[in-house]
Structures are given as C-alpha cells and as structure tokens.
C-alpha cells in the first residue's frame, strides 16, 4: 500500500502531511456527501410542504374538519368529505392486523422455538418470499381467485352471524374483508421478520430458567419469551400497519371503489390510497379535485408518519432493554 502523497520536504512540518491540493479530493468528497445528505432532508421537507401547499384549496373551501369527517365524496358536485375513505383505510387495516399479526407471530415463534433445526431456514425463506410478490399480482390473484372463491363462504358467514354488528347484510364480491385479507398476507413477511428478530434476542437464561423450573415448552414461551418480545412484536405490527395503510393497487382491485361506508365488512368501500389512484386522471384540470386528492395523500402521509413513529419507539425501546 503506497503512503500518502509525499510533499517536497522542507515545506511541511511532517513528511506525512499533505498539500492543500492533495487534500482537495477529501474536501470535495466530504462536502459532496454532506450536500447529498442534507439534500435528502431538503427533499423530504419540500415534499411535505408541497403536499400542504397543493392541498390548501380544498381545505380552504371545505375546512379541515369537514374534509376529514363528512361522509359525501362526490367530486362532480364538489363535495369532498373523506370520511368514507378514512373509514375504509382504517377498517381494512384493522382487519389486516387482526388476521395477519397472530399468524405472523405464530410463524415467528414456530421458526425460532418450536421447529426442528433443519426446517428453520427453508421456512423463513418461504415466509419472506411473500414480500417478493408485487402488489399488482396480489390484486390480480385477489380479483380472480379470492373474490369468487370467498363469496359463498362470506354469504354463509353473514347469514350465520347476522346478529353481530357489521357482519350481517348483503355480500358484494369486492369488499372490505377481501381487501383486509390480502393486506394481512402482504404484511406477514415484515411482521414475521421483526418478530423473529426480537424473539431470537430473548436471553437464553430466561428461557432456561423457566424450563429448569419445570415449565412446559408453551409455558416457557408464554412466561419468558412473549413478555420480553412484546415491544418488538408490537413494533413489527405497527410497521405492518403502516404498510397496510399505504397499500394502493392490491386494495383498489378488490375493494369495489365505492365512496360510501358499507354497512358490513362484506360490502364495498374505498380507501385514501385507492381514491388517488382512481381519480387523479379526472382531476388533472380541476384544481379543487386535485387539491382534494393531494389532501388525501397528505392524510396518508401523516398517518404513516405517525404509525411508523410509534413503531420505531416500540422497537427502539425493545432493543434498549438490558439483556
């Protein structure tokens, strides 16, 4: 390895000190990379500000509260109440969490605690492969396979449990439930990967202590593993939630895109992300409509920001625990 450029002797106090010219690449690199990094901050800040500025017309016209909480989204009549969209986003995400997190945690537990050693690798790869399927393919599969296959089961379920609120009533092909189910599948890999990470960091002393005192395997998991991993699992669930909230294409293909709040989970709805995808083309020249859609994007952005912030707080807290 060559030594650094040696400057003419007598001009520098040390033979290893470099001339200003030789130091130029270093300075250029430092400033270049710093500019790049600051540029990222500036970009995101500009992003946020631009969203606010472009959505301002609709908030001025309708008011923030009315925008968020009135239930009529009828662009042709200049009515922009995003409640059905917000409700749809939250309902599908809730279904996704309810269905997806237990499965994700179970898969993580199985892989780290219960599975024979040889199966662990392949099993992990398979669950993670779900993340390789793009959103549009999930939508394609949901549209042609899930919707027709699930309809009879949904109808039976709606009839059998019609006394439960939000279950009974007519069943449409595309509905909240199918969208929530597909979202659950999509968040499986993230939630499972994070749960796996956290569960594998449980100190073996805790686990061995429980086993030594005669606990069964399940009791050991219940007493030593889950409480310790609780924070991280919650963080993983929040990250999955963030993903579910922002998912567009898979949802818009299976939710029916009806700007109403359905009476049951087996009816059509709409989400914030789906409305942007569907209506942007028609809003190209209509400033108010465009502002309304950008407003939906802003709400999405704020929601995911909040959820991801909570997720990070959970994960960081879990990581910081003394072993």
């Amino acid at each position, binding site marked *: 390895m060559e030594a650094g450029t040696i400057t003419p002797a007598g001009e520098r106090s040390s033979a290893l000190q470099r001339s200003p010219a030789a130091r130029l690449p270093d300075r250029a690199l430092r400033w270049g990379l710093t500019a790049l990094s*600051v540029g990222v901050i500036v970009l995101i800040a500009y992003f946020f500000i631009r969203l606010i500025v472009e959505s301002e017309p609709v908030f001025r016209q309708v008011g923030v509260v009315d925008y968020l909480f009135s239930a009529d989204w009828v662009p042709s009549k200049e009515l922009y109440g995003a409640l059905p969209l917000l409700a749809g986003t939250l309902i599908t995400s809730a279904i996704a969490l309810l269905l997806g997190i237990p499965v994700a945690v179970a898969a993580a537990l199985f892989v780290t605690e219960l599975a024979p050693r040889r199966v662990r690798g392949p099993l992990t790869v398979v669950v993670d492969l779900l993340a390789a399927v793009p959103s549009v393919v999930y939508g394609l599969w949901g549209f042609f396979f899930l919707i027709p296959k699930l309809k009879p089961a949904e109808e039976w379920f709606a009839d059998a449990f019609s006394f439960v609120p939000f279950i009974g009533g007519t069943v449409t092909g595309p509905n909240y439930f199918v969208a929530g189910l597909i979202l659950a599948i999509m968040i499986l890999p993230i939630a499972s990967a994070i749960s796996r990470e956290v569960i594998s960091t449980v100190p073996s002393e805790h686990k061995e202590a429980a086993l030594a005192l005669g606990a069964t395997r399940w009791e050991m998991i219940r007493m030593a593993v889950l409480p310790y991993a609780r924070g991280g699992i919650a963080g993983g669930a929040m990250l999955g939630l963030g993903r579910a909230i922002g998912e567009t294409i898979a949802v818009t293909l299976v939710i029916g895109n009806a700007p109403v709040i359905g009476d049951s989970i087996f009816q059509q709805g709409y989400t914030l992300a789906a409305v*942007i995808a569907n209506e942007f083309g028609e809003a190209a020249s209509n400033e108010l409509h465009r502002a309304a859609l950008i407003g939906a994007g802003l709400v999405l952005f704020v929601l995911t920001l909040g959820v991801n912030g909570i997720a990070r707080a959970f994960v960081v807290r879990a990581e910081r625990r003394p072993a």
Partner: protein
Amino acid sequence: MSAFAFEPVSARRRRTDRLARGAVALLTGVALVPLALILWYLVRQGLGAISLDFFTTDPTGSFLGDPGGVKSAILGTVLMVALATAVAVPVGVGVAIWLVEYGRASKLAHAVRYFVDVMTGVPSIVFGLFVYITLVIGGIGGSSFAAWKGSVALGLLMLPIVTRSAEVVLLLVPNALREAAYALGAPRWKVVFRIVLPTALPGIVTGVLLAIARAAGETAPLLFTAAAVNATAFDVNDSMNSLPMLIFKNVGQAQDRLVEIAWGAALTLVAMILVLTLLARLIQRRSRLS
C-alpha cells in the same frame, strides 16, 4: 415460579402445551398457504400465455384481433428501473457513506437518518403523486407523461432502501481496516473508495438488488408519471409501457385473452423478482461480512 418446582407436570398442563404448540404450528401452516396458492395459480393461469411470441411482440391494443405480447412492457420495466437505479444507487450509497464515515452520531446524522426512515414509510402512491405535481403538472421537461419521470418516482422509492441497507453493511466493515489504511497515510477518499466500499460491496449489491426487485413490481408510482403505451419505445421523454402497468390495465377486462396475458405478465414479473431476490441472498451468504 415456585409452584412448578419439582411437581410432576399435570395432564392439564401437558394438554395445554400440546394444544398451544399445535395451534402455533397450524397458524404457521396457514402462513404458507397464500404463497403456495398464488404461485400455483400464477403458473396455472399464466403458463398458457407464455410463448416466444409473448416475449417478442408488443401488445397491439387491437380489439378484435391478436392481443400481442408483452415485449414493450418488459423492455420498459428494465429501462425505467435501470434509470432509477442509476440515480438512486449513487445517491443512496453516498448518503450511507456520509452517515457512517462523516456524520456518525452527530445531530445532523440523526436528522438524516430520521428523514430516510420517513422516506421508507411513505406509500408509493404518494411518491407518484409528488412527481405528478412537480414534474408532470408542473411542466418540467414538457407537461406530458414521460418515462424518466416514472424513473424519478421509482428512484425516490429505492433511495431509502439502498441507504438503509448500505449503512448497515458499511457499519460492519471492521474499523481495524480503516485504521490500518489511515496509519499508512492513505487519504480519506482512498480509504472510502479502495478499502471500505470494496469490502462492503457484496452487502451493498444485495441491498441494491432488493431495491430493484421492489421497484420493478411497483405500479402506483407509474400511474401518473410514465403512464403506459403499447409500442416499444426507447425515448424516455415519452410514456413507456411496463409490466405492472400492463397487468393493472388488463385486470377486470372481460376479454379472456387479455386476462391470460395479464397472468403471463404477472408470472414473468414474479419470476424476474424472484431471480433478483435469490441472487441477492446468494451474494449476501457469500459475503465476507455477515
């Protein structure tokens, strides 16, 4: 805990244990079902569309005649993702280098990390919307849809993924290597480019491949930036076709042939992404720093 000490395990506890473990195994099985179903369905519905013509002809858009193939979509995806990569990777790796070598634990570094994290969470449609507002409606480079604008949206998507994974790998490079180089008088830029980056390269490549796999499958950012046309075109100033857009357009069509093409395109896309993902994992496994 003392209640357990030295007592024989009761039948009830044994039963609970078996039931619980069974439930966990069952749920894990449930987790495997969707992937199996999707892959099986993809192959079953999509294989029929695959042929040499499928890959070598463009979609014709013809209503009654032959619907054509997906050539322009594959080429469009490759081109747009390549362009996005060419922008996102240097910037992403650059930011990662700054974070590890220069910023470290400083306040600015914390801010940069935070903002990169924020970027990770932004839904892809919001990126598309942002590019639509600033570049398409804003009229930069012409007011029409353009493939390069789609690449910008994809690049924004890829940037945080590349930065995050590059940062992780760069942190794994042993400090001893850096210190040895400095001790021998190497200037900083040489240490970065000749020592640190080559060592971290496999890990960075893994991250880049995963980001590419992600970008190749995205539809939402392209909806209102690059749109989609049928003909093969290499002009990045015009709209360009892409596999996700083609699939999206063909879902819900009543024509069976178009639906079959959608499945074939989906199979192709998933195959491409799987290859990239497996390649990434292979490189990761063979890397010196795991």
